[in-house]
């Protein structure tokens, strides 16, 4: 190839990397802006406890969001995470209350429940080749019903923080002599780093991206597409289970029949964080930032006298803007 031919190099400034950086920076900017805005409007917002609260209510959404990033990267979606999380929390919590299962084991059961749900999704999407949307919509309904059936329709209360069995609550919020340490946030950060490395620097992660980028090409490269496609949904299920743990640790009672709609919060966070709905591209760090925007809104708006229903409206608009950016970025290419 002669030196004169430089068509490809016209792009070497790498607009993708640049835009991605931009989107993340925009999101961080939005977070900083919101934080300053709320602090300025309300003195009560400028408290350590507010920060801890924002963290507290973001754990379960963050975990779901980290998980659902993977199906989204494959170009699919997992709608069952919301009801799945609640079902897992119900089922495991019920075992603690009714069968006196040690909490440690129950947490494991909770995670395994999520993994099982992930396996069901993986089977219908990767093995039966059903459209992910409708397949996970079905399992969303199944999880919702099953969670309720398994506990006989009753709400479940995991052991309180002060009790002997309540130690698991300090996984996320450690009470060190009256000072609250949001260890959950550190945990989430660690998970973000681990999953980022997994996504970008391990074979399974790379193959999951490949499935989302061009399934046929991946197959012809000798990649066992179905296996990695399935893995994305199992990861999502695993994080659904983890989110169940976080949900149980943060809140008091888990009520059957709830959870529908929470998946949308998580997916919205992923999209705001810059993951492409078309698949093939996504970042875990962005996902966390996206979730944070929503958590900030949810916690911050009441401080300036606006009800949470305004959060719905604002999140809706932010979401449209985020997808619009994604679409125009893709259109440019």
């Amino acid at each position: 190839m002669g030196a004169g031919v430089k068509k490809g190099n016209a792009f070497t400034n790498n607009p993708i990397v640049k835009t991605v950086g931009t989107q993340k920076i925009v999101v961080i900017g939005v977070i900083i802006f919101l934080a300053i805005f709320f602090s300025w409007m309300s003195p009560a917002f400028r408290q350590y406890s507010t920060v801890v609260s924002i963290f507290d209510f973001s754990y379960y959404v963050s975990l779901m969001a980290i998980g659902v990033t993977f199906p989204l990267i494959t170009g699919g979606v997992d709608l069952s995470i919301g009801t799945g999380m609640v079902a897992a929390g119900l089922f495991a919590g019920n075992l603690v209350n009714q069968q006196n299962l040690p909490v440690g084991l129950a947490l494991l059961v909770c995670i395994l429940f999520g993994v099982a749900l992930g396996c069901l999704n993986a089977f219908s999407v990767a093995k039966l080749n059903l459209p992910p949307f409708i397949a996970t919509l079905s399992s969303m309904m199944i999880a919702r019903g099953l969670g309720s059936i398994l506990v006989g329709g009753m709400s479940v209360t995991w052991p309180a923080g002060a009790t002997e069995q309540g130690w698991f609550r300090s996984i996320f919020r450690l009470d060190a002599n009256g000072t609250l340490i949001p260890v959950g946030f550190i945990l989430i950060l660690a998970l973000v780093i681990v999953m980022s490395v997994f996504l970008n620097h391990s074979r399974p992660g790379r193959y999951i991206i490949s499935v989302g980028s061009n399934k046929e090409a991946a197959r012809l490269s000798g990649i066992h597409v179905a296996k990695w496609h399935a893995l994305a949904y199992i990861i999502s299920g695993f994080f659904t289970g983890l989110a169940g743990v976080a949900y149980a640790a943060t809140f008091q009672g888990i009520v059957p029949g709830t959870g529908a709609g929470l998946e949308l919060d998580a997916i919205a966070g992923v999209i705001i964080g810059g993951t492409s709905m078309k698949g093939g591209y996504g970042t875990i760090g962005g996902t966390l930032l996206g979730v944070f925007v929503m958590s900030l809104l949810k916690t911050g708006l009441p401080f300036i006298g606006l009800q949470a229903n305004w959060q719905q409206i604002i999140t809706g608009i932010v979401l449209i803007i985020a997808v619009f950016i994604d679409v125009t970025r893709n259109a440019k290419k």
Partner: protein
Amino acid sequence: MKKISNNRFVKAVGFNRILLCFVLILLYFLFTILVHVIQGQNFISLNRIFSALNYAYFMGLLSLGVTFVIATGGIDFSIGPVMYCAALISGYLLTANGWPLLLCLLVSILVGSLFGMLNGYLVAYWNLPSFITSMASMMLARGVGSVFTRTQSVSWPQAAAENGQYRMLVRIVTESGTTIPTGLFVLILISIICAIILNKTKAGRYILCIGSNKEAVRLSGVNVKRWEMLAYIICGTLAGMAAILFVGAYTTVQPGLGDTFNNEAIAGSVMGGTAMSGGVASIGGTFLGVMIIALLQEGILAMGFQRDYQFVITGIIVLVAVYVNVRSQKRKN
């Protein structure tokens, strides 16, 4: 099997729809037997049919609407909350502000259309993915309904009360006490209109073709954006109408809810043979799919079970339906 599918009658009605009829009848018998065994009750009664139909009316309209959107290859995840939002706003204007009934009914339909227009505009003209777009407008619908009514529920007037005439759209009870299920006629009428639109008009032709191959239709000199947007407007308008049938049967709507209806409406459409990938849709099938959902819900209640079982069973049926659908399409190619 070939013989059956080549039979002229079968061909005219469609194998899928005959299968659905069969499932419907089978379910009815199944419930008759099970209800007798479990509850010692008679399942066959007019009252039961009426109460199942109550559920089918609004669900039918939602499902018909979303069929148009799925036919274009998109999805509308906002119909349930939009229906609630329409019923809340128009009901609030009727009861709190004393607007005339007819105007309020119009407002209800209009609110639905507006959300349809928003979805359609963003999807068709801005090329945003329909799933995320409708998710955003679902958040908007929930928030707007909630803000508009200041988080209060709205109860529509009773049939006998002032402004109760709208209930004649759902049922008329004559002086002799006979109930005429006018809602069924409304549903059938609207189904027929939808079937005509989908199969006999330019709009329907283009909506189906867009679902099949949008670019080819565009390059035929067709204004694809307009027709694609129209599908969403039809969907939203039907959701606005569904709001009227909903309050006609169930009187009260609360803010912040309605998203579970999305799943069932989409499930009804998919059961009816609408392909998630677009291009293939059946109004008759959707009608039957909705009837199956309504029957399931009535039958499960009659057996004395919670609705949880209905969710699980609907989920399983949808999985099976999609599997059959995907398989038969694969065989065609």
